[in-house]
């Protein structure tokens, strides 16, 4: 029973996507939406039932094995599913958030000629994501891993008449593909060493220390590269902001709530491997920290609403990687869940705003929208405060607080006698939290407060409002299931995810909690000082390179606080990692052109020279055949003499 349900969870969205693709253009818009939403809701209901079953059953996990994929003498891989608390949390997030976003999309995308294609890709995405989450075998998971990348490509380039969208889609796919190739190498290494990619077997092999430490380090490092690319972390971060070219529901589902968190999920699933390689954990934490800070700086200088949210996603994923780097994967997963709630909410709000202001995405051309769309503004406020981590009231607070406290207590291994204290990371993470609050408050104040600059029309339909309401509720109260010890002794989430290993009850000082809660409020206050008053201190324009002007009489308080904005915004404006990667790509391009020309020259020359030599030889030969009798006679005589001479001499 449970096994059938488990396979149906994946099969139903897949079937829906096949139906939608095959029916291309022959179904009415309503039917398309109904099929897609129906499939996802069935999937969601089944996963809820499964949650109940798993909870009531004594066994901690559920295994389904379908068939053997490839088997050779010393390696075998199969297609099968495992449902354990970890994957249960993920499928609940994917299906339920996915369902809300699908509902929203039926109205958002209504009337688009490519509706069937859109929902076909979306349901295919959900199916691949569920496959990724549920697979019991890493190679089988790789199917889902690439499948979500493909759907992401198709959806970013959904409006394909715009060349920029296509370029963004291609960029996203190719950058993540680089990571995938690294990951494939990691899998190959693991497969060779452990002769299986079955997750359980792998974990047992590693616990029994049957794999050499160097092989393990290399394979985890390679897998880490794959996850970094998928989750848009530092060297690979540049695809995610461009990916916002896709329809907004896509951005909400794929590029905020689920696909980009696949990397986090994978590392959480393989945490035994990663905890066995402390150096990789440290690398992970460093990359996460750098990313969370730099991406927050970037978000501070964007003028496009969706790009702000995209950079914010990168930054929040950085938090998750930092949490994974401490080795406490439950913490990362908790933040993953709350992030899925509030970021999906923010994107859906952004979509609702954008449709109502006639596809204007520039926050400097909006303003005063609070009066005309209070509902959306409140929903956005719920998401924004949750993202910033406003204390007590929001889900984001609890998860971020958990990350901060675990980072404070953690220590990072560099070399046998060199251990890095977590305090450094904590400081940067705190600065990131401050910036998060600053940029999202800036965004809120510019969009909803101040003077109205744009003409707004229409009404947000009910089908779009319901998901916003549900997600607002989750973004505010979804975090209550896990609280710091200082507040209340609630650890529902971590106990559910991993009953065997409860979080180490950290005896954190109370001031840590206070600082963690106070920083976002400070950030919001600062944002209010800069942008919130009737005459804002900072006048920004949508031209990104120009630094913002200050209003002439600068209040003293604001003048003192200005560097708090100036420095990070300078960092964001001179986006160093992006410049670096652009430099690398220019270099590659140059080399490519050079090599192509070099090759062309060589080949042209060689073939030309060969041709010329042949032609010369040909002419020479032709010259001897001139048809003159006397010429031939002379040759005969000469040949005779020569052969006589030769015979005589020898």
């Amino acid at each position, binding site marked *: 029973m449970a096994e059938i349900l488990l396979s149906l969870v994946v099969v139903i969205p897949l079937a829906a996507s096949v139906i939608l693709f095959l029916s291309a253009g022959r179904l009415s818009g309503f039917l398309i939406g109904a099929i897609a939403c129906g499939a996802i809701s069935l999937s969601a209901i089944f996963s809820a039932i499964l949650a109940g079953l798993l909870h009531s059953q004594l066994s901690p996990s559920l295994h389904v094995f379908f068939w053997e994929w490839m088997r050779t003498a010393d390696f075998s891989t199969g297609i099968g599913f495992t449902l354990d608390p970890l994957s249960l949390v993920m499928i609940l997030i994917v299906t339920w958030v996915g369902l809300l976003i699908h509902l929203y999309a039926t109205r958002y995308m209504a009337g688009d000629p490519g509706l069937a294609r859109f929902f076909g890709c979306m349901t295919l995405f959900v199916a691949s994501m569920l496959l990724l989450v549920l697979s019991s075998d890493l190679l089988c998971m790789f199917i889902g891993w690439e499948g979500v990348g493909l759907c992401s490509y198709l959806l970013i*380039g959904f409006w394909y008449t715009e060349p920029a969208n296509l370029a963004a889609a*291609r960029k996203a796919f190719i950058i993540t593909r680089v990571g995938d*190739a*690294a990951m494939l190498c990691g899998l190959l290494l693991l497969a060779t060493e452990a002769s299986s990619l079955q997750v359980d077997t792998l974990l047992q092999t590693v616990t029994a220390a049957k794999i050499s430490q160097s092989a393990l380090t290399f394979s985890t490092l390679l897998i880490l590269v794959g996850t970094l690319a998928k989750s848009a972390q530092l060297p690979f971060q540049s695809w995610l902001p461009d990916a916002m070219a896709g329809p907004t529901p896509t951005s909400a589902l794929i590029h905020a709530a689920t696909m980009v968190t696949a990397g986090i999920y994978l590392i959480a699933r393989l945490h035994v491997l990663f905890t066995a390689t402390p150096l990789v954990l440290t690398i992970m934490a460093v990359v996460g920290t750098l990313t969370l800070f730099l991406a927050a700086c970037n978000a501070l200088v964007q003028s496009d609403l969706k790009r702000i949210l995209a950079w914010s996603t990168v930054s929040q994923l950085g938090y998750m990687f930092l949490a994974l780097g401490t080795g406490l994967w439950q913490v990362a997963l908790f933040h993953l869940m709350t992030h899925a709630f509030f970021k999906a909410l923010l994107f859906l709000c952004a979509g609702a705003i954008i449709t109502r202001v006639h596809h204007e995405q520039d926050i400097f051309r909006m303003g005063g929208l609070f009066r005309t769309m209070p509902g959306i503004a409140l929903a956005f406020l719920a998401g924004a405060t949750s993202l910033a981590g406003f204390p007590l009231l929001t889900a984001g607070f609890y998860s971020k607080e958990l990350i901060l406290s675990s980072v404070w207590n953690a220590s990072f291994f560099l070399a046998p006698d060199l251990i890095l204290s977590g305090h450094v990371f904590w400081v940067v993470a705190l600065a990131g939290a401050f910036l998060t609050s600053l940029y999202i408050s800036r965004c809120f104040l510019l969009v909803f407060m101040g003077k109205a600059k744009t003409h707004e029309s229409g009404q947000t339909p009910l089908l779009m409002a319901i998901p916003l309401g549900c997600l607002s509720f989750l973004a505010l109260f979804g975090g209550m299931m896990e609280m710091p010890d200082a507040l209340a002794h609630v650890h529902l989430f971590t106990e559910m995810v991993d009953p065997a290993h409860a979080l180490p009850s950290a005896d954190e000082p109370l001031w840590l909690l206070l600082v963690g809660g106070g920083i976002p409020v400070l950030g919001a206050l600062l944002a209010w000082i800069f942008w919130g008053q009737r005459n804002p201190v900072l006048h920004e324009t949508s031209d990104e390179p120009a630094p913002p002007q200050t209003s002439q009489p600068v209040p003293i308080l604001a003048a003192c606080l200005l560097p708090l904005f100036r420095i990070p915004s300078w960092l964001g404006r001179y986006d160093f990692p992006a410049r670096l990667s652009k430099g690398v790509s220019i270099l590659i391009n140059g080399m490519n052109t050079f090599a192509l020309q070099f090759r062309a020259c060589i080949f042209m020359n060689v073939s030309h020279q060969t041709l010329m030599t042949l032609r010369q030889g040909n002419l020479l030969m032709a010259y001897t055949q001139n048809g003159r009798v006397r010429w031939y006679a002379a040759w005969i005589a000469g040949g005779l003499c020569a052969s006589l001479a030769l015979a005589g001499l020898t």
Partner: protein
Amino acid sequence: MNALPALVCVPLAGASIIWLTDRLPATRRSGPWAITLMTLTLELLLLLWASFQGTSHQGPWLNHFSIPWVPPLGIVFRLDMDGLSLSMLWLTILLSLACVLLTTRHIRDSSGTFHALLLATISGTVGTFLATDLFLFFFFWELMLVPVFFLLCGWGHENRYRAAIKFFLFTQGSGLLMLLSILGLVIINFQETGILTFDYFVLANTPLSPLLSMLLMLGFFIPFAVKLPVVPVHVWLPDTHTQAPTAGSVILAGILLKTGGYGMIRFNLMLFPEAVERFAPYATLLGLIGILYGAWLACAQSDIKRLIAYSSISHLGFVMLGIFSVSPVGLQGAIIQMLAHGLSTGGLFIIAGAIQDRLHTRDIVTIGGLWESMPRLSSVGLFFAIASLGIPGLGNFAGEFLVLFATWSVSPFIAILATGGLILASVYSLKLVNGVFLAPSSSRAEPVSDFHAGQMSILGILMTLLVILGLYPQPIMTFSLPSPATITTSNSGKNAS
């Protein structure tokens, strides 16, 4: 009653019927096409019969047929079938059926000759996959090439003569090397044992000095490498594929290239295992170069067919890598990769041909936005493009993974570099998809027709096969391993002695 000689002869018979009836005015219009279709259907039935016919004898060889041909020289008309040949035959027949159904019907000028040549090629290919007498093998090898030359000359595109000459010189020149090698092997065997024979199973036991076996192995290797193609001798392929008529491209890419891989497995690996062992590092390197170089050049093309042709070079580099990893896993991977490449690249060439028929251009830059006008063609094209890009779950990935896995245990470094080919594969495949199917649509006056349901169902079969190959390759993996040359069929023992 034996299906093997019938398998070889039926296409030839079909070809001669077409040749004869071509004079009659009644069959001018689509008579040759219909006869070809009937011949191939008959061939399909024969193959079904051959597949499910219980083997009468023990051993890994499924079927056997032999009659003396030129007794004084020990030449026998000998055909044997094992899992490898059978899977290649299925690929051949299915792909040529799809190709004939989809692409050759509209051919109007001397359609009879065209179809006769096509059938002759198919017959040669079938013979190549079955022959176990070296002389017979060479005969079929040549039979396969000559009709392709005429197909190219007669029905190709703008630069056809140059391409045809290039193709002919490369394949014919290298074929002569193989003839030399065959004669060398036979003569050595004659000197050693006093038996003059061209029999594969007898010659497999010829004692050879290391130097000689290396030389003979290279003599076999070079023609197969030209056919596969391996990088330094690949130059004929892009031109030929680009200039060939659609059916020619499909047959060439889908089937004829596989004879190279098949020959490497059947002849190099089985006849000279020890020389192959020594040669393997260099061959692996060649394979790696092929993967990266082919993919890199594919990224730089703007002609659809040329792009696909270069991508073939890259994919077949994996085949080479798998074969010369000299392990069962690599071999299985190479076979899966050959089958998957046949299906996906064949499909891509069908798509490219359909586009050229409709728009009269192959330039990626001028084509664009086909999704709007031809959603079916575009979605099929997208499917084949992502298959050739190596999305897991489709056939190509299964092959590539097995090959990489086998290579990894030989040399992780080469395997890592080969995965670079996968990244480049995504670059060129997406270039194709972005440029042709997506992109803003170029303004076109004439309306174009999409694939109709019948064509879609044929392509659907190809796609389903790719999915099956990708998700459940295990039966084919266990089934299609080549049978060792040392174990002969029971009734071949008395024949050879």
